[in-house]
Structure formats: structure tokens, C-alpha cells
């Protein structure tokens, strides 16, 4: 009798499990596969705006891609090259312009909430401090008191994989081949699986067809990535 109860319980469990898996099938990933991972970032940085609308070159910010293993995340000082002057969205600034004209007063500086997070990492408060900012005046002692922006890494590889941006960028591959259409993303999302099979298939394919009509040799030895 107890045996039967156990059997039913087990069957119910299996059925529920199958149901659960079926529901989740769309989002079910193998261990370590983080496709579609799109974490919230500490600052709502929009690639759509910068890379898409403004057409800033990827390597203006990710300048390591050509010379290093890592493409790198830009230092705050790189952001400040523009955001020393651009302190808010174009719309907000236009609105302020209009209001100021209507109210017949000097235009007030507008600082958006998101950008204030950037300025906060530099310890800047207020429009005057931002306008007066000079990277050469940041001494090591001052820098010690600053907290860098804790960006959340999206494209993660396991520790036993050594990916190097250099050969891929230098051969002329577009960043979008692996990172997807970043210029359309408000928030960065991992488009590809970044699994080994995906890497190897691409290496095979481009070894056959070449990149931009140039023949390339993309090795598929273990030591290409594992050492």
C-alpha cells in the first residue's frame, strides 16, 4: 500500500518536473551558458544613443580591442572628454533653453540624474565643478578617495578560456559579429551563446570563406584558447 503511494508521488513529481521544464524550455540554458544575459547597470548607459545615434566608433571607448586581450571599459576621464560639456540629454537642454527664453533669464545648467552618477565617481558636485574639472589636477591621493563605476560585466568566459580581441579586430571582423547589434541596444545584452561550439564553427567558417574576401587562418587547436 505504501509502495503505491510512493509510486504515485514519484509519478506526480516527474509530471510536475516535465511541466516545469517545458514552461521554462525557452529560457533553459545549459550550465555556464548565459545567452540573453542583460544585467542592470549602475548607470543607465545607452549604447543605442552613443554607438547608434551618435555613431561614436566602438574603439573610441573600448580602445584596447586592437592592442590588447581585453577591449576594456573606458576610464571615467574618457567619458569626461564629452560629458564635461554634455551634462544632460539634448531634449532637457533644449527645454531649459526654451524656458529660459520664455522667462527671460540666463540659461541654467542642467545635470541629468544619470550623469550625476558619473560625476559622483569623480566627486564632482554642481555645474561649476564639472566645468572646472581637469584630469591633470587629480592627484593619486585624490584618486584614492574616488570610487570607480561598478559596471557589471556582461560577456563572461570561464577562467580556462583565453579570448583575445586583437586577432579578431585586426583581421577586420566587425564587433557585431560576436556582440550583436550593440548600436540598437539600450542595455547591453549577450546575444550569442559564447559556447565553444559557437567559437569553433565560426573559426571553421571563416577559415573557408575568409574575412572581407581576405583569406584567414583561424586555428581550431585546443591551444588557441586553452592554456
Amino acid at each position: 500500500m505504501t509502495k503505491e503511494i510512493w509510486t504515485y508521488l514519484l509519478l506526480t513529481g516527474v509530471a510536475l518536473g516535465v511541466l516545469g521544464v517545458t514552461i521554462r524550455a525557452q529560457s533553459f540554458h545549459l550550465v555556464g551558458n548565459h545567452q540573453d544575459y542583460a544585467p542592470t547597470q549602475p548607470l543607465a548607459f545607452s549604447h543605442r544613443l552613443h554607438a547608434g545615434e551618435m555613431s561614436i566608433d566602438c574603439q573610441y571607448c573600448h580602445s584596447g580591442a586592437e592592442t590588447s586581450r581585453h577591449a576594456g571599459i573606458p576610464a571615467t576621464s574618457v567619458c569626461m572628454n564629452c560629458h564635461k560639456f554634455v551634462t544632460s540629454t539634448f531634449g532637457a537642454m533644449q527645454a531649459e533653453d526654451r524656458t529660459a527664453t520664455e522667462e527671460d533669464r540666463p540659461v541654467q545648467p542642467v545635470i541629468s540624474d544619470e550623469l550625476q552618477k558619473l560625476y559622483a565617481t569623480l566627486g564632482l558636485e554642481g555645474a561649476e565643478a564639472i566645468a572646472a574639472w581637469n584630469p591633470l589636477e587629480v592627484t593619486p591621493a585624490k584618486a584614492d578617495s574616488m570610487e570607480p563605476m561598478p559596471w557589471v560585466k556582461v560577456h563572461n568566459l570561464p577562467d580556462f578560456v583565453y579570448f583575445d580581441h586583437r586577432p579578431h579586430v585586426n583581421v577586420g571582423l566587425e564587433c557585431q559579429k560576436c556582440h550583436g547589434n550593440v548600436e540598437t541596444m539600450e542595455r547591453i545584452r549577450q546575444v550569442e551563446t559564447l559556447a565553444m561550439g559557437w567559437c569553433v564553427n565560426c573559426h571553421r567558417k571563416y577559415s573557408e570563406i575568409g574575412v572581407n574576401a581576405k583569406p584567414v587562418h583561424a586555428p581550431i587547436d585546443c591551444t588557441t584558447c586553452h592554456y
Partner: protein
Amino acid sequence: MSKESTKQYWQSSRPPKDGASAPTSDEHDLSQWMEEPPGHVDRRSFLKAAGFTIAGAVAAAGCSRAPIRNAFPHIIQPEGVVAGRAVYYASVCGACESACGALIKSRDGRPIKLEGNPGHPLSKGGLCAKGQAALLGLYDSHRYAGPKVGDAGTSALLDATWEEIDQSLTASLEGLRSTGGSVRFVTGTVVSPTTRAAIARFLDTFSDAKHITYDALSSSAILDAHEKTHGLRVLPHYDFSKAQVIAGFDADFLGTWIDPVGYTAGYRAGRVLDGDSIYQSGGSGHFSRHVQFESRMTLTGSNADNRYRIAPEELGLVLSHLAARVARMAGTGVEAPEPPVWYSGFEEPPVSDVVLKELAEELWRAKGRSLVICGSQDVQHQILCNYLNHLLENYGETVDIERPSYQKQGNDAELAEFLEEIQAGEIDAVFVAGANPVYDLPGGAAMGEALDRVGLVVSFAERPDETSARARNVRSRKYVCPDHNFLESWGDAEAVHGRVSLMQPVIRPLNNSRALIESLNTWSGAPQSAYDALRQRWEREVYPASSGSASFVAFWDKSLHDGYATIESAPLPARSFNESAVSLITSADASDESAYTLVLYPKVSLGDGRHAYNPWLQELPDPISKVTWDNYANLSVAAADQLGVVEGDVIRIDAGGDGDAGTSGLVLELPVYVQPGQHDRVVSVALGYGGAVSRRFSDIGPAWIQARPSVGKDGLVGANAAPLLALEDGALRFERSGVKIAKTRRKHPLACTQTYHLITVPEHIAPAGGLRREIIQETTLAAYEEDPSSGRFHPLVLDEDLYPEDHLYKGHHWGMAVDLSACTGCSACVIACQAENNIPVVGKDEVRRRRDMHWMRIDRYYSGEGDDVDVFHQPMMCQQCDNAPCENVCPVLATVHTEEGLNAQAYNRCVGTRYCANNCAYKVRRFNWFNYNKNRDPLENMALNPDVVVRDRGVMEKCSFCVQRLQEAKFEARRKGVKVSDESVQPACQQSCPAQALVMGDMNDPDSKIARLLASPRHYKVLEELNVRPSVGYLTLVRNRARETGEGEGTEHHA
């Protein structure tokens, strides 16, 4: 021509019986202590439990979320810094006073590796094992975190701030200045002129102040002898590259003596074979002859062309015989008797008179191009050595005293005076920097007690040592003002007169330490940063002697970039030789026949013991004995037989005397190591062990039920032999005669690596005719000149293959050649490999279980009879076989062949069957029995190379030809659109080799060095007969000695 000589090569202390090459000592039969642990879990229940656990883990992982990994950017983008890109800074190695040029590889702001600076005029691209391992000295959590004060009356050192220290010290110093108290500043050799100047300026503020310099590994007798013979207390700079005949007397100049890296580079440049022009240092066009007389088997002796065993007491006699003969030839005649010389009052020499006659003639023929080197601390011996060099007109040629070396500045006479003063209580303040006198001096314990009575003691030690951290109830006011590590410091070095180098910091100080110069400047009343002091001195004193730089700023920037500066500083005035100082020694000290002479020596790994904190060096096998983690009493084979002791038996070495107060007297109890080639009346013991810094190794290695500690019962690694040194006649002596040896009943097993990983064949499993393996192939210079391929063995290779020839190697095909003639066995490559490839330290117990993890080992072979042996060093790493036996047996394809000829090892795929290691003919694969990496000091993780995986438990690993460097070189070459050059593909071992014995490159590139070496008639493959087609080849060892009978004459093929 091929050979099949009858010469035997073996690796244990004694030749094998009946030609088999298995270890003979029972000590190495590990089965005896590999019983099952009590209360163990059997295999079945383990697998059952593991199955459940894994199933559970997989079920849980299905719904895992990506971990939040933060990426923190810079705030201000530093110039020239790119995340993930290594930057190399030229600096000076601070591991010892040799002051070799170093390139410090820095990744994302952390120094991760020290390499040789190829442009440096002295070290010429080499960096020794100690220098490279010094990286761990930076990442050492045991360093002083900040300044400390030890209050009078208490035993503890209390944390303090620099302001507090400065305030109270300045007050104390003012008191000393007003009362005229005596101040002594004790240091090791200070090779930095800026630091020397700061010390001098500081001491100038006192009326009775003196800078006492001593070297734990003293060479003061050389300086004293030159004072007597040339009127100038200097250490000559020896140029080995010019020397065609080198006579060495108890000087281990390739291993531990003064400047091993610089000397090795010179020695190598002076031993050039035809077609050998591939080496960077060029060469002298000659192949020098090197004869060595020594009492113990040194690294230098193992490389000599001829080597003779003499007791330390006989050294003076041998030198005198030689001097008498050379003087006779020179016609000057300080007692130049008729040969044979002993008829005229000379005692008979311990070596054959013919040997000395021939050596004298050889030296004389190479007049002005020869070199006599003596490592003795007896001034009389050194005067004889000077006399020989004078007669041979070597001064100004191979021996330079006009541009002398500053690598040893110790003055033992002043040290002795200081010790007397401090014992008498005449000193009011002692400053100790870069020295540990309580540990490394004879009578150190007494010195420590005397220090407790001194009113003010200031130590600049980086980490707690015997001198700085004496936990006694002291009466003195004590300060610890930790100096920066050299990787955090600004500094300079003038190792040789006029050869100046710059040291720069590569990381901000990890601790609250302060540069010695800054501390001194503050207390002198003229606060100045080390950088300002350095730059100011260079502008004032160094820059005017330079040429070719438009401004000081340009000169400074160039020197900082290069790591050294070329300047023309005025040589010291020439001096003439004072022959009246010479007196020949006509007899050896008669010693008691039943007594032994104790010889204390530094090891290649630990030196004087200041690096004893360093786990890499503790686990580095000694180049000769291959023992790790211990010091031991070396006895010759004959002496061991006579005493009836075998390796591991503990003996009691009694040096008599009343002994050191507080210790067990002049007695040492150490395990025996049987060392062929040592003098029969000599027992030798390594210095540098038994220091307090080695206490930290009490729990190194994996923690498991059978684990045994790496330290002895006293919690230390080895025993400190320094109390047995003798400070006599104004010189620190490393030998002590009349020592008694007694057996004890105890055993202390040694962890020796040369008893396993053998690639010779044990007799009981050898196939017919397959017992002999021509692993070492050697010849003599004479035979080589007749036939460059002499000594080569051409086996019958059955090269039919089961497998299709599907490795085409259309791109690169990496290969390596190792020149056995150049390799000295110094083991710099072993540490280079360890640092580059994140190789863990396993501890003594694991080494004894044959589980050392070094990817690269240097096999040491003996050949000869009894104690008259030749020694061979053969670096052995993965041979990257084209027909690799390991690849065929891997069930999961974790080790596979790449298109560039590497045996790739994919750690993440390996399941640990260990079939590959079993099938490897060269025994170069290493298995992680435990998660060895877990056991390190967490701060040491900073030294890990981020380009190499940190392997986990259960994974096989091995040499990868530094594939991460190959990848880097290929990517960079492609980025710049250039060909991959020989220089860019140097693996770690090759990069730092002081002798440039290793060459790696692309065998498919006809212009590469490796392609030229492959074509050399000296090139051979180890175990070629197996047809595994290794990519690593060796060049025959050539010794410059009279042809041996039968050698090179064999004509039979080995079949």
C-alpha cells in the same frame, strides 16, 4: 661517426649495480610508507557518495543565474596602460648585491614576473633563480605592515606611526649627538651609491659614528689581499669572456660566488664552438679551458673541464706549487725551486705534479688571457692568487682593479672590531639595514644579547627576522622602520665601477613602509624623498660623466628606460704589485687523521638565507644534490662508506669549542647526503637554513591524513649552520678543521627529486639490448675539432608508422635546442618556468612522494668512478613529440597535437586518468594530486600570471613551450604586420638563462636560430631510437680536456 662508449651515466649517489640505473637506496622505495590510512573511505563508497553529489549539483545548476561580476574601470586613464597588456619596466634586481639588470613584467598594475634585461652590460639578459623568485618577497603577507616600536621593558613590538617614530627617534638622536654617543650602522654590501651617500650623510651628524659593512657570504679576504699586494682595498672585476685558461680554487663562480649571472654570461661567451654565432653575447672566438680545484662538488666544478678534489687545508700548498712554477717561467723568482718542487722544502701536492706542471704551462701560454680565481677566505691564499694573476699579466686584462667590482664591500676586520665593541658595551646606538647579524654571524646569539643591552636599536628589515624581531625582555629602545621592497623603491646600483643602473618602483608600496633613504634624510634633518635624492645625485654626479645626451632630462629618461646608463667614469689609479707581500705556503696544515674539515657553503637556491622565506626557492632542487627543503651533511662516497652511513642517517657534527651561549654549542645534527666528488676528509653543510622566516612553512602542502610537515621538529626548515662559521684573523672563514663526526640512530628522510622521473631503464624491465640509453652525448674539444659530430650516437630508428603522416606543419613548427655545453645547471629556468606558469609549491612530503610539480627539471647525471665523477646537467621539459606517445592513450582527447607541433594539454578536458604520464618516455608530465594552489599565501595570488590557467586537483599538466607567449607573439606580429621573430617567442626558461643555453624558435623558418642549430653536427635527440620525434634537441657536451681513451673511436652501431 657514431659511438657506443662503455661510459656509464647514473643519477643517484652511487653507480648502479650491473649497469641498471634504478635508485639503489632503500630510502627511495616509497611503498614502505604508503599504507592505507586508518579509517579510510573505500573506493566503492566514495564513488557512491560522489555520484549522488554530482547528480544533485547538476540538478541545481540547471536554473543557475549568471554571477554578477563587476568590472571597474580606471578613473583617470593612465598613459600607456591598456587593460590586459603587459608592460615591462627596466630596473635592478634587488635579490642580492650582484645588481643584475631586470625587466619587470607588470600586468594591470601588478608586477608578475622578473626577467633578465638583455641590454644590461653586466648580466647580459640573465637572471638567476633567486632574482626571479624575489617576486614572492613583494607579495609576502609576513612583511612588517608598518613601523613598530619596542618599548624598553616589554617584549612585544607595538605598532606605531611614522610621525611618532620620527618624533621620538629624533629626540633620542639629538641626545646622542650632544653626548657624543657612539653610533654604528651595520649593513650588508650597499651597492647603491645614493644609499651609501645617505648613510654617510646621516652618520656625519654624529661625532663617533661608523658604517660597518659585512657580507654573510664574505669575500673580504680578496679585498684585504689587494690592499696588501696593490695598496688598494678592492674587489677586482673578473672578465671571464677574455679568459682562455681559467684555474678555479674553491670558488663557485657559476653558482654562488659574488656575481654568478655576470660570470656565467662571461664564461659562456668564452666557450664558443664553431658556428655558434647565434648567441646574443657574441663570443670571444675561443673555447676556454677550465680547471677547478675544490673540496666539495660545486656547480662550477661540475662544469669544469678537469676537476680535482683537494681539502681546504691543501689549497695554499697547491696555489704555492702553481705559483712557484709560474714564477720560474716568468723568471722573477720568489723561491722558484727546481721541479719537482717538493725536494726544496715543499710538501708534495695533493694532486699529481704533472697536473700542476701542465696547468702552469697552459696558464703561461695564455699569459694575459688567463684567470686564476680563488674563493678562499684566507688572505695568504688570496695573495698567492693575486701573485699568480700578476705573474700571468692578467691585471688589466681579465682582472680589473682600476674599474673594480662593488658587489662585495664587507670588511671582516671592522666587523670583528664591532663585535668586540658591542660585547664590551661601548656602543650607544646600532642601526641594522639589509643584514641579519643575529642569524648569519658566528656568535649571533651572543650578538643578540649584546644588542639587547644597546641603548637604541633601529632595524630597517622588511620582514621579521632574528635581529629585528627578538622577542626578549630588552632594555634597549627598539625601532623597526621597514624599508620598501626593491620592487617598490627608487634606487640605483653601481655593481662595477662606472657601470650604473637605475631601479624604479613598479607598484605603490603595499605596506606602510618607508624608503631607507627617506628615513635617514628625515633623521638627518633634511627630509627628502628617495626619488629626489636619487635624481639629484644623478644630475650632479652621474650625468656629467655621460656623453651623448642633450640634457639631464633626456639622459635620465633614457637611463630609466634602459635600466642602466653608459658613463665614462675615471678609473682608479693604477697600482703596482708589491711582491714582498707574497710568501709561499710550503705545507698543508697537518690535520688529525680521524677528524673532518667542515665546509660551510651557500646553496644556489637560498644563498645566505635571506630568501629562506621563499617557497619557490625552498622547493628548488639543488643543482647538484637535487635535494629540496633541507640542508644536510654532504659526505663523499668513500667517507660515507667508512663511517657506515647512508643517505638520511642523521650524524652529529661536533666542532668543539665552548659554543654559543643559548644554543647547543658548536654542534649540528643533520642527515647525511652522499655526494660523489667531495673530498674524503670534508663534510659540507649549506648555510641559509634554519632561519626564523622558515617557520611559516609548518603547514605548507596539502592537508590530508598522511601529510608530513616540511619543517623539522623545531618548526624550521633545516638547521642554521652559521654558528659554526669562524671569524678568525679578521676574516669570516667558511671552513673549520678538526671536526668530529658521530653517528646517531635517527633518520631524517631527504626529499630528493633525482630518484624518480628517471628516463633510464631499470634493469629488470629492459628489453634485450635496450638497457643502455645514450641520453648524454659528450665529446672532447680535440675530438670535436677533428669531427664536429664526434660523440654523437646514431641509433637505429625504426620509423615505420602505424599512423598516417597527417601533421603537415604548414605554418610554424616550434622547436627547441638545448646546448649541453652551455648549460651550467644553475636552475634559473626552473624558477622562470614556475613563475610564468603558475606552478604550485607542494611541500617536502609531496616531493618525497614524487609529486613535485616543476614542469621543467634539470636532470643531473654522474659518470666515472667512486668520487672521481663527471657531472652532466640536462634540462628536461616536455619534448613536444611529433609522434607523441601521450596523445595516443588519452581516452578523452585532452592532450592532442596542434598544427604548430605542440602537444596541447587542455586542462578543462582532462579527467586525470594519468595514462599519458605513464606513456611519456621523458617523464615530464605532472599530476595535481591535490589542489596545491589552494595552499598558498593569499597575497601570493597577486603573483599569478593571468595568462595561464591555475590548475585544479585531478588534472595533468606539463610544459606548453609557454604557448601563452607564443600566442602573444603571433598576435602582436600580426597586428604590426611583421614576421614572428626569434626574440618574441622566447619561453620563460630561455629568456632568463644566463648562459643562453636554450633556444626556441620556428623550425620552419630557415632564418631562425633554431633552424641553424638543427643543422649542427652536435644536434641530437634524446631517446631518438623510440621514434617519438621530439621537437626538443640537445647539442653534445664538449669538454676541453685531453682525449679519453676509446672515446670517439667507437664505430659500432647500437642496434
